[in-house]
């Protein structure tokens, strides 16, 4: 077992720090690792897809994913997996058996442990809720080294503190997840081009519930009357009858590993104002005004960026941020105002994605809550400080919050406004982990 100091950062490649990375540890070693963690503590890291500093621990121990283990599904379709199992591996296991995960984020390259710790969501949130809602039970090693099995029906307090708890309540070693039956590995997709923000908000509010999956891509270069022009993409799992051609021959095709890769970070970012303008224009124009019945693979529909490994390097040596917030459904005015500020700012934005969340879950620090969530990417730089601080204040004032799995810079003093249950979370940590055996750069930065 190795334990080498290594410089780590999140997917945004900002604020790197060095921790001692513990590789190839089995689940049985976790208790001892926690007991011997030392003054800077330990944090479990998955595949490093959190954008900020959630899965790094300066001067402390960083536990690499536990080995992937997937048991055969039970009769009810639930499946026991180790926390280090990636959703990529899980999908490749489940699809040939005619099953699928009910919640998948925009990348398959996350671990089950990370998905629970961040309580990730997907395009299905308005129907299925978040990842934490798909867990039957999970096995947790507490900071003092004792093992606990928790779930919504079993020690719910500890369970809902762990869901979205950013790995700070214990180390998740395995979980039993619900799965859903699917006939195929394809989606029946409906795509619509919408000319402005009001149109897309109305369309989503009006008919999202007719689809299991729904998300809108917003052209952040459009201003004035075209502000918020979007491509709305919605889908359902395709049935066998809907498939034709090669897809019909192999209906349960599994997602493939990436075919392309960005081999190194170029010395300057390639995501600039001009490249973004071209990309956004092309993306909007290539979308049909209205099209239904299009068959797309799981990768193309859910995880288009997974096709290019290390795409985050395109932002260059200084990395990038993703700013994601949610505001209540009746505060679409905040979405509009923020979109105006983002579109009007000279700082580039690349991907802007809008989604309507269903009712929020029970996780104490879970991000999703009923309303509108917008995520925008921008190259990192001190020029963003003032803009993002202003956005935070508008979001907090509207009763919204920002997403900890994406955050790398929020002001700590806004945390209790955005996360009203944070004081309870802190009390729980005080009780469970008085020596702070679990720590991360995120927990230190925001005093979680």
């Amino acid at each position, binding site marked *: 077992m190795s334990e080498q100091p290594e410089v780590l950062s999140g997917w945004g490649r900002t604020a790197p720090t060095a*921790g001692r990375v513990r590789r190839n540890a089995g689940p049985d070693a976790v208790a001892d690792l926690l007991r011997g963690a030392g003054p800077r503590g330990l944090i479990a890291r998955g595949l490093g897809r959190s954008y900020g500093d959630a899965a790094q621990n300066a001067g402390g121990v960083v536990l690499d994913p536990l080995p992937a283990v997937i048991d055969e599904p039970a009769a009810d379709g639930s499946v026991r997996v180790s926390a280090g199992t990636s959703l990529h591996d899980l999908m490749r296991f489940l699809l040939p058996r005619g099953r699928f995960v009910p919640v998948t984020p925009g990348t398959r390259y996350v671990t089950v442990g990370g998905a629970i710790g961040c309580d990730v969501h997907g395009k299905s949130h308005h129907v299925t809720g978040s990842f934490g809602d798909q867990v039957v039970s999970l096995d947790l090693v507490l900071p003092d080294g004792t093992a606990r099995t928790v779930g919504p029906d079993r020690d719910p307090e500890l369970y809902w503190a762990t869901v979205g708890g950013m790995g700070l309540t214990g180390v998740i070693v395995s979980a039993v997840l619900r799965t859903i039956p699917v006939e195929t590995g394809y989606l029946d997709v409906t795509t619509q081009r919408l000319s402005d923000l009001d149109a897309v908000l109305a369309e989503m509010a009006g008919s999202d519930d007719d689809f299991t999956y729904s998300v809108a891509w917003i052209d952040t270069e459009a201003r004035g009357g075209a502000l918020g022009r979007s491509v709305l993409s919605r889908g359902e799992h395709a049935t066998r009858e809907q498939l034709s051609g090669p897809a019909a021959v192999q209906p349960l095709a599994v997602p493939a590993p990436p075919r392309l890769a960005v081999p190194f970070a170029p010395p300057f970012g390639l995501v600039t104002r001009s490249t973004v303008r071209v990309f956004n224009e092309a993306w909007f124009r290539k979308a049909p005004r209205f099209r239904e019945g299009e068959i797309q693979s799981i990768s193309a529909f859910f995880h288009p960026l997974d096709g290019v490994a290390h795409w985050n390097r395109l932002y260059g040596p200084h990395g990038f941020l993703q700013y994601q917030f949610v505001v209540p459904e009746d505060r679409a005015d905040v979405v509009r105002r923020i979109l105006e500020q983002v579109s009007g700012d000279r700082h580039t934005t690349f991907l802007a994605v809008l989604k309507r969340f269903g009712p929020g879950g029970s996780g104490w620090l879970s991000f999703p809550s009923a309303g509108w969530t917008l995520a925008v990417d921008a190259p990192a730089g001190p020029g963003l400080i003032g803009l993002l601080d202003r956005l935070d204040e508008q979001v907090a004032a509207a009763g919204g919050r920002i997403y900890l799995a994406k955050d*790398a810079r929020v002001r700590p003093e806004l945390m209790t406004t955005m996360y009203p249950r944070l004081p309870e979370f802190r009390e729980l940590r005080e009780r469970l982990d008085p020596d702070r055996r679990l720590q991360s750069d995120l927990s230190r930065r925001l005093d979680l």
Partner: protein
Amino acid sequence: MINALGQPQTVLLLGGTSDIALALARAWARHGSPEVVLAARPGERRDRAVAELGQLGLAVEAVDFEATDTAGHPALIESIAATRDIDVAVVAFGVLGDEERSWQDHDTAVHLAEVNYVAPVSVGVCLSQVMRRQGHGVIVALSSVAGERVRRSNFAYGASKAGMDGFFLGLGEALRGSGARVLVVRPGFVHTKMTEGRDAASLSVTAEQVADAVTTAVAKGDDLIWVPKAMRGVMSGLRHVPRPLFRKLPI
């Protein structure tokens, strides 16, 4: 922790009453409220600095620091780091001294070398130990273009800065992979109380301009900057001027 946009939560200012150190604290306070540890000689100047930063809404702690007391540095830096992470430490102290006295008067020459070279090495070693343990942190070393090519008119000062500059550049290399970083800053002529009464050289800057350049460089992860930027080209040229000609330049 320093965040993704380079905003520190704790800043240690060694030589905390210097104009550049205070300008830096103000620059970081513009978009945040870092805790500031102001390490300087006790006295009225330090009290004023603490009060000024306090008025900006910053939590300020003053600690006694004497550059030439190198034996006391390890315990001092350890005690500061015992209760918090040091996100950024600024090595901002130095003396300019009288150019002619500082090579003809023995005490003056030794004192200048101690304050400008020995003391920065001393705190540099202590800070690097703390930051390696933390797994993160930035040491900002305020060097000078005077150290890049040492000239007759202020060679005692220039030589001490040359030594300090080389030490911190090397320290930055040694710390690679540890999470800790070093930023060496080479300002030209800066209008401060240290240079008060002297004729400004060309490309002179204010302490605020130095501070803005430093906060940007810390955010970008740079390891060496000149202030103003144009100084880099100027010094690059001057470095290659033959000695007989260099001697005749009015600098």
